[in-house]
């Protein structure tokens, strides 16, 4: 050590000639980096108030609050996240887990106040001046904790499908189901979409953790046809899934199917709590899903229940209308048997006419009408009474009950709903060449898009914008459909375009059978006249109040005959609601 060590550090004076690297804030503001985790902004339009951000926040900094101008609706809770910057730690987990990617962070970082109460705000609603900033932390869809990709469902290949009535959908394997169920973020927006308000997040979580019996028990709390719904539900819940906005919604239907199919004997799985027997009795007309649901829950509540069914098998439209490749008969039998085992009496081949209806009114303290829609709408064109014009529900019923049915080599199905698709696909399985003729465009078809795709895979041709004009006889036992083309006329915003026949053009199509599938209507001829007078109807359907009671006290109705949606889950929901209504009615509360 010597003079050198003493003098060397003085070399630092060299620095005095260098340009300083000081950043002159606040005189010259400095922008933070491209992906800086600064203050939040939220796209209120895109946000659905699912609350995933609040659930993942490590500090409970996020509350979901109602926001002026945003009403709750299906698929949107009406709440919006409010962030407390006295809690936030800017970790960005909320951004990373936002299913709709509406929440993001800007690279703004200066927030100075004199009072501590000024750090709570609703991003997007309270305008802070940095909403327009584009830079900042954003979610990368492909590399985040949210799983947007649905686990694909395995299906039979189309060539094999048309050979038999075997079930098309093969179902999830256990590992697949748990993986799919694990995608659910548990927001519960789907519940509002389900007519029956099933506890969807709960049973999906149970599946994800492998507790299948618990899962099925949760389902049976408000749906005794869980397996039916697992196979053929219209699954409106899935359209409200928060994951569906940026990716595939959780396969709620297939998961329900997976869980219920695991158990062949429901009696061992489902723990029922039966109430004490009561001396009131209820008569249920129609052993469809709605009627049997009402019967099941009434029986659990201790009432005597008798179900009257005109057909030789219970199940209603699910028995007669749904083709077996979608809903096999043993599955239906398993569920119906379980319901009947709760002490429900079932009378088959019991056709209720006005006289018998009066008997039932005397015999029972309340009556539930769940007869469904069994009368097809007709085309309303000349020559429709041709013997080769058949109606889809008759056709499907005959096929399902193994009655002989002859459709020839080429058929045309008129209509675009699920029944039309069923009829078309059943016809394919009967080795016929099938054309589906619909008066609007393919995108307007009310049928489930999966059904349309399935039909097309199986070789069904879909013709759009076809309007039948008349039906004529054709040689060799065939029938000729004369039709015109339609053009779509815009009906203004928010309303779907209307098909209008292009005049002067006529085309002909010669087929073996014309299958009409343009909808069904109610047949209320079984009601005695004086009762029918008192029961209000609306467009052919029975009008009911919020407890499913008709304007005739003591007579309840539900299912397709009373609601406008006409699907199985709505019928089940009606049945469940009617149970509560009937119970309250027995307790003397009419309204």
């Amino acid at each position, binding site marked *: 050590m010597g003079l050198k060590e003493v003098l060397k550090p003085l070399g630092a004076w060299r620095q005095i000639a260098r340009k300083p*690297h000081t950043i002159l*804030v606040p005189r010259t503001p400095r922008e933070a980096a491209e992906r800086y985790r600064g203050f939040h902004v939220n796209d209120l339009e895109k946000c659905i108030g699912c609350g995933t951000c609040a659930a993942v926040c490590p500090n409970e900094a996020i509350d979901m609050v109602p926001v002026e101008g945003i009403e709750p609706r299906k698929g949107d809770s009406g709440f919006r996240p409010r962030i407390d910057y*006295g809690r936030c730690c*800017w970790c960005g987990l909320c951004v990373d887990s936002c299913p709709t990617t509406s929440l993001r962070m800007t690279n703004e970082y*200066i927030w100075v106040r*004199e009072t501590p109460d000024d750090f709570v705000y609703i991003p997007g609603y309270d305008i802070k001046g940095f909403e327009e900033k584009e830079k900042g932390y954003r979610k990368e869809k492909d590399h985040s904790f949210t799983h947007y990709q649905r686990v694909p469902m395995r299906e039979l290949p189309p060539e094999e499908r048309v050979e038999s009535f075997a079930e098309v959908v093969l179902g999830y394997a256990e590992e697949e189901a748990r993986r799919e169920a694990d995608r659910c973020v548990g927001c519960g927006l789907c519940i509002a979409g389900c007519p029956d308000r099933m506890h969807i997040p709960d049973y999906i979580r149970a599946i994800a953790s492998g507790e299948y019996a618990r899962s099925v028990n949760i389902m049976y709390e408000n749906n005794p046809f869980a397996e039916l719904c697992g196979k053929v539900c219209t699954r409106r819940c899935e359209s409200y899934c928060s994951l569906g906005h940026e990716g595939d919604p959780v396969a709620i239907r297939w998961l329900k199917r997976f869980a219920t199919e695991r158990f062949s004997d429901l009696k061992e799985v489902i723990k029922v709590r039966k109430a004490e027997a009561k001396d009131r009795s209820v008569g249920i007309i129609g052993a469809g899903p709605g009627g049997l649901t009402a019967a099941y829950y009434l029986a659990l509540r201790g009432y005597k229940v008798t179900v009257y069914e005109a057909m030789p098998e219970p199940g209603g439209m699910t028995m007669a209308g749904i083709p077996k490749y979608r809903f096999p008969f043993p599955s239906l039998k398993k569920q119906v048997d379980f319901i009947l085992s709760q002490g429900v009496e079932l009378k088959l081949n019991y056709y209720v006419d006005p006289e018998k209806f009066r008997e039932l009114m005397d015999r029972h303290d309340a009556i539930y009408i769940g007869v469904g829609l069994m009368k097809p709408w007709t085309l309303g064109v000349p020559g429709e009474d041709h013997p080769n014009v058949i109606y889809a529900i008759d056709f499907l019923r005959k096929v399902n009950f193994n009655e002989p049915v002859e459709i020839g080599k080429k058929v045309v199905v008129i209509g675009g709903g699920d029944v039309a698709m069923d009829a078309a696909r059943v016809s394919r399985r009967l080795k016929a060449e099938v054309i589906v003729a619909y008066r609007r465009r393919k995108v307007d078809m009310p049928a489930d898009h999966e059904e349309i795709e399935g039909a097309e895979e199986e070789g069904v041709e879909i013709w759009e914008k076809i309007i039948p004009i008349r039906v004529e006889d054709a040689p060799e036992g065939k029938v000729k459909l004369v039709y015109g083309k339609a053009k779509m006329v815009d009906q203004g915003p928010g309303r779907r375009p209307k098909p209008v026949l292009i005049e002067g053009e006529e085309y002909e199509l010669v087929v073996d059978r014309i299958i009409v599938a343009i909808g069904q209507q109610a047949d209320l001829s079984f009601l005695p006249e004086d009762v029918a007078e008192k029961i209000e109807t609306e467009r052919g359907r029975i009008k009911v109040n919020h407890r499913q009671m008709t304007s005739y006290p003591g007579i309840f109705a539900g299912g397709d005959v009373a609601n406008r949606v006409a699907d199985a889950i709505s019928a089940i929901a009606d049945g469940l609601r009617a149970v509560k209504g009937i119970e309250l009615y027995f307790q003397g509360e009419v309204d």
Partner: protein
Amino acid sequence: MGKDKKYFLDEKPEKLTYGGVFRRINDWARARSLWVVAYGTGCGSIELRPTFTSRFDAERLGMRMVATPRQADVLIISGYLTVKTLKRVIRVYEQMQSPKYVVALGACPINGGMYYDSYNAINRLDLYLPVDVWITGCMPRPEAILAGFKRLQELIDSGRADGWKKYIDNLDRYRENQKKIIKNWKMPNYNW
């Protein structure tokens, strides 16, 4: 217990009152020379280092770190405060000479921040000390800290930074809140 009196204020000190031009000049000068007591009470002190050194150089705004509270004007509460530190912070604050200012950094002093559920970190600083400027962030960047100081300077310049007066006026209330969580007012023998 007589010994405690040396550690903490036990009665309201006199407030120096002077007005008019003198006060105006004083405020103007004070705002341009803020000395910060070098006490890193929490994780925010990591961002104080860049703030006060060459990259952001708070010294060009008249601010510097000093070692002892008796020379300091500003106490920075850098983030969360544990109960143990709170006791020392109160002592440091009461040792500082009026006028004195408190700046709270980060989310934690506002409403608990990350440690809202911690058994050892306080949730609301304003119950125990009068805070003049709150800067949120976790941690606030040096730029945000400087923005906060700029606000503090404006407040001082316009004579509105009167947290220290509030503390004297409401000493009973502050002391009551402090006593809720600090039971033992004797300093332990390992630091006084």
